[in-house]
């Protein structure tokens, strides 16, 4: 039977998908699980399952790519999505309740520790009943009557912004709003091979410069197994307002990302110095959206490029100096269209087998990928006010945590509150180091020590 007759269709991968495919394969080969992240909604009550269940069924009918499999074309050696006919069941839904909760979620399984449960789900395969789902949803009823919804998603198909858009799409379907999601993706110009090579130069030169700095990570270049840990700190509206004011004074109101990446660099440097090491500097890759600003979608594929920032020893002395350096690099990379250049590099690497792809990525930094993971994703899904009849009170990401580099510091905002997510792989950060890292982060965020914010795990 031909693919068309069987209802199976093909969909092209996007350029950045190939990097995520290589990374997912690297994590699988080194037994670190898969490249799965979570996006969390905190709700004021349990959602209405009578609305949620049919919404999840409609979701996979509407977007069968959620059950797609990545294949490689043997003629072109390019990966592509094999999209099956819509599955006969909805997106997997897990129901859980913390011990001591009211038990409003019928059929939910008791759970001791929500964070441990979420971490466990992230390490489990997303496949259900032989269907290669690329996402699942879990609802956890909390003791205090509130609720968490966790969308676990494979980075093969979805990126951070896409996860926010997907949650909004589920929310719309819960409300009975079933509208088309087709959106324009920015067109990539057709270039000759010579033009493509020319376009890669800015990124190649940048990477060569960064290789001189090096990208030491707290975990070291060897991949490590072991569980991942996450800590989320939500600042109060008052602290968030203070922070916003400080960010504006430090980075300018328009470029907060440069301040947050500086904080992350100094927090990691604090741990290196605690270990008696003073590397020349650090390199951090920051995802840059390639979705056209103002457009709603697209929901799927990795619509990102990368900006590589460095934090050299001379610039790490004060948060002011580090922020100024990041801001200068941000301007230079934007001016040099580094995001386009880096995509051109990835495009030339699309046909590489995943193992070779990762070898090229890690070769530049002697086995490392970058010094730590970081992102500042701005306001989380501002359009998502309600979800299946419950108010969204907070939202944040729990990004996947592979080694190297094994640690990360992430920031996002929701409803005027800043969320800080610290992540680390077992063995990469001791309890004392976690406290030091958070201590340095808070000191830089607020300009003074804030021991009151260093919650125990």
């Amino acid at each position: 039977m031909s693919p068309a007759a069987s209802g199976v269709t093909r969909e092209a991968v996007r350029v950045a998908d190939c990097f995520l495919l290589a990374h997912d394969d690297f994590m699988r080969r080194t037994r670190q699980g898969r490249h799965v992240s979570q996006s969390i909604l905190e709700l004021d009550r349990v959602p209405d399952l009578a609305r949620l269940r049919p919404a999840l069924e409609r979701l996979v009918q509407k977007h069968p790519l959620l059950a797609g499999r990545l294949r490689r074309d043997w003629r072109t050696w390019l990966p592509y999505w094999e999209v099956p006919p819509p599955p006969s069941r909805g997106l997997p839904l897990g129901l859980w309740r913390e011990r001591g909760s009211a038990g409003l979620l019928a059929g939910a399984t008791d759970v001791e520790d929500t964070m441990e449960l979420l971490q466990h789900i992230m390490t489990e395969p997303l496949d259900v009943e032989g269907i290669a789902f690329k996402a699942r949803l879990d609802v956890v009823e909390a003791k205090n009557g509130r609720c968490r919804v966790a969308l676990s998603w494979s980075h093969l198909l979805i990126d951070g912004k896409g996860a926010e858009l997907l949650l909004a799409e589920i929310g719309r379907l819960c409300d009975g709003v079933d509208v088309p999601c087709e959106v324009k993706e920015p067109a990539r110009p057709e270039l000759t091979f010579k033009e493509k090579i020319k376009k890669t130069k800015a990124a190649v030169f940048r990477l060569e410069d960064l290789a001189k700095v090096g990208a030491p990570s707290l975990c070291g270049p060897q991949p490590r197994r072991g569980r991942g840990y996450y800590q989320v700190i939500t600042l109060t509206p008052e602290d968030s307002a203070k922070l916003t004011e400080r960010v504006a004074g430090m980075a300018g109101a328009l470029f907060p990302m440069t301040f947050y990446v500086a904080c992350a660099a100094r927090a990691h440097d604090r741990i290196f110095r605690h270990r008696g090491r003073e590397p020349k500097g650090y390199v951090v890759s920051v995802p840059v959206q390639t979705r056209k600003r103002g457009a709603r979608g697209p929901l799927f594929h990795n619509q990102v490029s990368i900006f590589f920032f460095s934090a050299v020893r001379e610039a790490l002395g004060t948060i002011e100096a580090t922020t100024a350096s990041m801001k200068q690099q941000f301007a230079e990379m934007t001016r040099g269209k580094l995001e386009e250049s880096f995509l051109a590099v990835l495009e030339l690497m699309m046909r590489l087998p995943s193992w070779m792809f990762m070898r090229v990525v890690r070769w530049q930094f002697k086995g490392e990928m970058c010094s730590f993971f970081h992102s500042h994703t701005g306001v989380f899904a501002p359009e998502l006010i309600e979800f299946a009849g419950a108010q969204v009170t907070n939202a944040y990401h729990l990004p996947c945590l592979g080694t190297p580099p094994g640690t990360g510091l992430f920031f996002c905002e929701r409803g005027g509150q800043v969320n800080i997510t610290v992540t680390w792989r077992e063995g990469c950060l001791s309890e004392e180091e976690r406290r030091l890292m958070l201590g340095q982060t808070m000191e830089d965020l607020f300009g003074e020590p804030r021991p009151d914010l260093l919650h125990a795990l």
Partner: protein
Amino acid sequence: MEQQLVQLVSERLLETQPGFGADSNLYDSGLDSMAIMQLLILIEEEYGVALPESELTRQNFSTVRSVAGLIRARTAPSAEG
């Protein structure tokens, strides 16, 4: 200048909605850090104006009209001279 800027923003920076104009809110239209940096570079390329740090406020970048005002203020002396 406003019309030219509206066109630049619509074609090269933001997926603007029908009816987008000089007084539309740029943040509601998706303006973020990256888009602002790209806008600053476009302004340099198109008008030869480098806006100083002190003028990079949220208010100044809220509409195309306010951005045009910044450019005009920087280009006015040389235009008169």
